[in-house]
């Protein structure tokens, strides 16, 4: 039985007026939901190939280098967020060899969505890097990190000697958004920085904040952060709507 209020769907992306058989979901609605969940699961679980992504990004930065967090595999990554926030020993060594006088270091990671890193990071960087280069930013080599969490960029930024540190990584997939990328940056990165000291641009995907628009927003925010000498909640975004609201309490 279809519902008489399918017209209400124009007001929201919520799964309204799904219809019913008795009180239960029609078959099409049930399978629709299952497909969305399957895509989200694939985004979380599909194997991340850093070499492949590096090959895609090398035309943008031939110095692109690969790193690993302390999370050995996907299952450990999901259960031990602390290990995703730290580099493994070999990667630490590699980063130290890259240390210098950098304005900005940019990291890319699969995070919670391999699809997001593969699909959104290349177009975002393709738009962002020329904007920064035109302004004369001294960029550290682009770094691809397997299984990273937000905050890992602070350790890397401190080791490599960068004034600002930016990470692009896959966000926790929603049912309708398996490939959404998040961007987080810190001024004067150091281990132990809090969420309040970072800025975030989220929902980067063609159906949300398109990669080119996200690059413009990041460019404006990074520029403003460099001028003011800090990042975090005090930093305002003049390019459009204000920054994303602070991270929600886990319970609300």
């Amino acid at each position: 039985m279809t519902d008489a209020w399918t017209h209400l769907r124009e007001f929201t992306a919520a799964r309204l007026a799904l219809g019913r058989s008795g009180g239960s979901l029609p078959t099409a609605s049930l399978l629709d939901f299952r497909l969305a969940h399957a895509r989200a699961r694939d985004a979380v679980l599909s194997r991340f190939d850093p070499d492949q992504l590096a090959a895609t990004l090398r035309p943008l930065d031939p110095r692109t280098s690969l790193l690993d967090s302390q999370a050995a595999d996907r299952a450990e990554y999901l259960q031990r967020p602390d290990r995703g926030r730290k580099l493994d020993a070999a990667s630490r060594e590699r980063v130290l060899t890259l240390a210098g006088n950098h304005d900005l270091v940019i990291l890319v990671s699969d995070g919670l969505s391999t699809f997001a890193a593969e699909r959104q990071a290349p177009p975002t960087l393709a738009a962002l890097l020329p904007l920064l280069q035109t302004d004369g930013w001294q960029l550290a080599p682009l770094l691809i990190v397997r299984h990273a969490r937000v905050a890992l960029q602070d350790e890397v930024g401190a080791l490599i000697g960068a004034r600002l540190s930016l990470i692009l990584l896959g966000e926790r997939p929603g049912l309708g958004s398996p490939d959404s990328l998040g961007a987080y940056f810190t001024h004067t990165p150091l281990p132990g920085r809090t969420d309040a000291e970072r800025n975030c641009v989220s929902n980067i995907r063609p159906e949300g904040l398109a990669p080119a628009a996200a690059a413009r927003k990041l460019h404006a925010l990074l520029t403003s952060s460099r001028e003011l000498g800090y990042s975090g909640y005090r930093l305002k975004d003049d390019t459009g709507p204000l920054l994303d609201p602070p991270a929600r309490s886990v319970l609300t």
Partner: protein
Amino acid sequence: MLKFQASTGVMAYHLALGGTYHTFANLRTLLAKASPRRSGDELAGVAAASAEERVAAQMRLAEVPLRAFLDEPLIPAEEDEVTRLILERHDPAAFQPVAGMCVGEFREWLLRYETDGAALAAVAPGLTPEMVAAVSKIMGNQDLVLAAQKVRVTTRFRNTLGLPGRLSVRVQPNHPTDDPRGIAASILDGLLYGCGDAVIGINPATDDPAACAKLLRLMDRIITEYAIPTQSCVLAHVTTTMQCMERGEPVDLVFQSIAGTEAANRSFGISLELLREARGMALALGRGTLGDNVMYFETGQGSCLSANAHHGCDQQTLEARAYAVAREFSPLLVNTVVGFIGPEYLYDGKQIIRAGLEDHFCGKLLGLPMGCDVCYTNHAEADQDDMDTLLTLLGVGGVNFIMGVPGADDIMLNYQSTSFHDSHYLRQALGLRPAPEFEAWLERMKIFASRGNRLAPIERQHALLASAAVA
């Protein structure tokens, strides 16, 4: 007034098992190691190191007298107001029937034929969260369901929630930008599916008084226009809701997320004093027609660790301590948002199901109107079938209310909960009906067929679809 015992001089617990001698440094450690396996306790470094050590801890815990939990506070009273609240509110007379028991005997007492709802309600003020958490750790899932089922906790604001044979639903009409028409559309979808008796409750995308006031007025208009016997809530921070009340906005229920330690509550920006003040303001509004349960609390295992305020305790014990905070304020609804926190605290469907049953049992035993957000995130090893299982078990256990999200997909918080359809499954499977006042309204509005508990066909001309809220 109780004199608080100094937390020095704690004793260690030992158990010889075959050739192995197990030692647990203190009661806190014993509880943590006895807790059924979950990723959050492993992350905190408090979990048992092996499956055998876990059972050894459970065996030793079964022999611990219930009184020990009064004598050895897990978190010192001097540094934690939740501990002080627990000790101050403990009722020795109510405790009497079980005062001589150890944890294992207490489990058996809970499961006796003779121990009925009245006996459990009488003993509740004598139980502390730690006693209840302890016994839950040695109980199987079926024990948790059976014991919880004996307890009915009834609360009232504009309707009567928690009666036997009833299941209520919160309509959760969230929208990523708080768009009023988008939210109204989801509310109507829920009402037309016979849901919304627990509360119509919105998680706002923007937590400020002006934004919340718009949502409060929207819901108040719908509830008034159609004379719906239910209540509304914007799940904003308590201080935001207090500002709304000061400005004369139509606040029915005061919401707050709470946790089981003072430090975790501080990280949420709250204290017992603040909650007391907020409740006083809501009571003064006098908006409830049938009762004065004006608070709505949400909890969830792992929140203390997430706030770095766990004091070396396991997450399930701390969750039970949050219920001591809740019961201080006679809430209308307490909701454990069990699977929202993610796989680093509850890894998979098995852990989420177990935690949901523990929370429901512990809350009910402490006398709370427990509901459950049966839910999971996309990075947890869980799916809709796991939620069907937990939903069914909680239904059998007599859960007061569940969430109703359009199609189970919360497009603002990005996780999966239960749907309006899920509530009809549970109502049919177990013969459960909505709150009586709301049920009568559904029949009056011809949303339910007059034979009861079944959805009637709805025409495009239905009064709710003419609502100005979406016109």
